[in-house]
């Protein structure tokens, strides 16, 4: 098992390095002058060509790419992700302020999608063909089709404007006003989790149906075990294998969708920061956000890989 962990860790590191290289290259090689990272377009417009050349030299943009890359990475390790042109702050400070908010919504959303998705999938597989199964399947099939931003808007209309039960949008820190904060995040968290909950339920259901047809389940019944034991001890662990593998993608998904949800519900998280930076052409911020997300997703995927190894002993001994 330890060998497996180490192998996966090294793999994750390799992927992270490649990802960082991709981030760096994308920002520097694509059309447009990389000097845009450091100066706003208006400033560049006003400067003379000599001044721009001088700036280029100051920021080391005339050095070979490899050197620039290493320099950039070393800055990253020291926690320096550059400066935001528009906000006039260090990127790392900006992100440090916004990231926890995104996680405050993202984590419950992920847990919800995992727990409810798997439970719904298992129950609908056990009660196959009965009303519960039909209900879950219908909701799951619809859940993966609905555009998230639209669901958010419909929910705001229904629960906030029409029924008045919940606040329309906005964010308050839980430390300031816990009750209000909770009421504010109910809809966004639900919207964040919806797609993955539905997809996980579908996956779990089909995995369970597949597993219960296997020979070893028949052996379990032949031993005289009760249904509960057969399902939980024999079937479930096997069904979860493909489902857990899928959760890695869910995490990446949720981080992506938070861009949309934070826009709809006006929440000052990292997602909304990305959109703002796009429109402001604040390239240093975009670069920082992508990098941070890459790190988070890689770590999450590593965790997923490790639990995969715990679930499926055949993988451990490859």
């Amino acid at each position, binding site marked *: 098992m330890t060998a497996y962990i180490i192998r996966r860790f090294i793999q994750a590191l*390799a*992927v992270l390095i*490649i*990802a960082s290289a*991709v981030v760096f290259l*994308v*920002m520097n090689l*694509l*059309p*447009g002058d990389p000097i845009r990272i450091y100066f706003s377009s208006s400033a560049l417009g006003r400067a003379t060509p000599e001044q721009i050349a001088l700036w280029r030299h100051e920021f080391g943009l005339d050095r070979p790419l490899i050197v620039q890359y290493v320099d950039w990475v070393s800055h990253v390790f020291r926690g320096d992700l550059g400066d935001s042109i528009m906000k006039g702050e260090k990127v790392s400070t900006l992100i440090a302020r916004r990231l926890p908010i995104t996680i405050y919504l993202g984590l419950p959303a992920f847990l919800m999608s995992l727990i409810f998705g798997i439970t719904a999938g298992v129950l609908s597989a056990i009660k196959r063909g009965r009303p519960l199964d039909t209900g879950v399947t219908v909701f799951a*099939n*619809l859940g*993966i*089709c*609905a*555009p*998230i*931003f*639209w*669901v958010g*808007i*419909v929910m*705001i*209309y229904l629960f906030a*404007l029409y029924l008045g039960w919940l606040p329309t949008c906005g964010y308050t820190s839980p430390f300031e006003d816990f009750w209000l904060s909770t009421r504010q995040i109910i809809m966004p968290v639900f919207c964040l989790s919806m797609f993955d909950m539905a997809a996980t339920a579908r996956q779990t259901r089909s995995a369970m149906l597949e597993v219960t047809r296997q020979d070893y389940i028949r052996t379990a019944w032949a031993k005289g075990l009760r249904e509960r034991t057969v399902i939980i001890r024999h079937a479930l662990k096997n069904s979860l294998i493909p489902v857990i593998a899928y959760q890695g*993608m869910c995490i*990446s*998904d949720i*981080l*992506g*969708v938070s*861009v*949309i949800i934070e*826009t*709809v519900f006006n929440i000052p998280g990292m997602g909304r920061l*990305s*959109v703002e*930076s*796009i*429109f402001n*052409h604040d*390239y240093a911020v*975009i670069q920082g*956000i*992508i990098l941070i*997300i*890459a790190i988070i*997703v*890689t770590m999450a*995927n590593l965790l997923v890989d490790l639990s995969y190894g715990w679930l499926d002993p055949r993988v451990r001994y490859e």
Partner: protein
Amino acid sequence: MAEENAIGTDFSEIPPRVSEFKRFTRVFLDRKVVLFGLIVILAAIITVIFAPIIAPYDPYKQNLNKVLLQPCQEHLLGTDALGRDTLSRIIFGTRISLMVGIIAIGIAATTGMTLGLIAGYFGGITYAVIMRFIDALMIFPWILLALTIAALLGSGLTNVVLAIGIGMVSMFARLMCSQVLSIKENDYAMAGRVIGANNLRIMLRHVMPNAFPQLIVLMTMMMGAAILAEAALSFLGIGIGPPAAAWGAMVNDGYKYLLTHPILSFAPGLAIMLIVFAFNMVGDGLRDALDPRLRGTL
């Protein structure tokens, strides 16, 4: 009782072999939702082709006298803030959604399959490098990829399609790669090599027929995802710019008037949901019908 032949075997006992096509059709259309999805897709294709004929008004024509009308007889879904007929805009929006979807998937499929083929065929270092690259690509949420491309290249149709396409490359690459790897070591591939057939030819002749069913299923499923992606991008304002009637942008425009005119946001969203549902259901049906375990049975 049936006739017996010379050796005493009753040939009517042997179950008739059904043609693969008949079996496929039967399983595929077995579930009503799949049939429903197929009809919706056909309707969408018709809408795309005949949009100017079907739509009651010009979707781009502004009419400042008829701003923000509620649904009525003349305008079944009302009008928006610039007096444009919502229903016509939704009809024309079908073109954008479907076109973006098809092109994006086309890009993703060709790029992905080529990458997968190369990785699987050459193996070794090539495989490792390409696979790690795909892994790295999959780390980024596709929205962020799209946002970055939009930031660097600007908005517009080409970039949206590119962004969505890149996000899907990994799925196709992985599919193709696993198909190639499984065929590579197969007995009949080795037999082919013994005869002296060229490796690449074997690869394509054997891999493509096997990969084809899964490829079709993947493309159909990804279509739904592509349409949702395009809608999200146009909602955020990155995407096909105005005055194009992109559904996502319509939802965004309608958001301001949610309290008084919910139909402006609701209607385009429902259209998105309907089309995506249709593609997903058809994809499900295709996957069930192409299941190799069902082959040869009625």
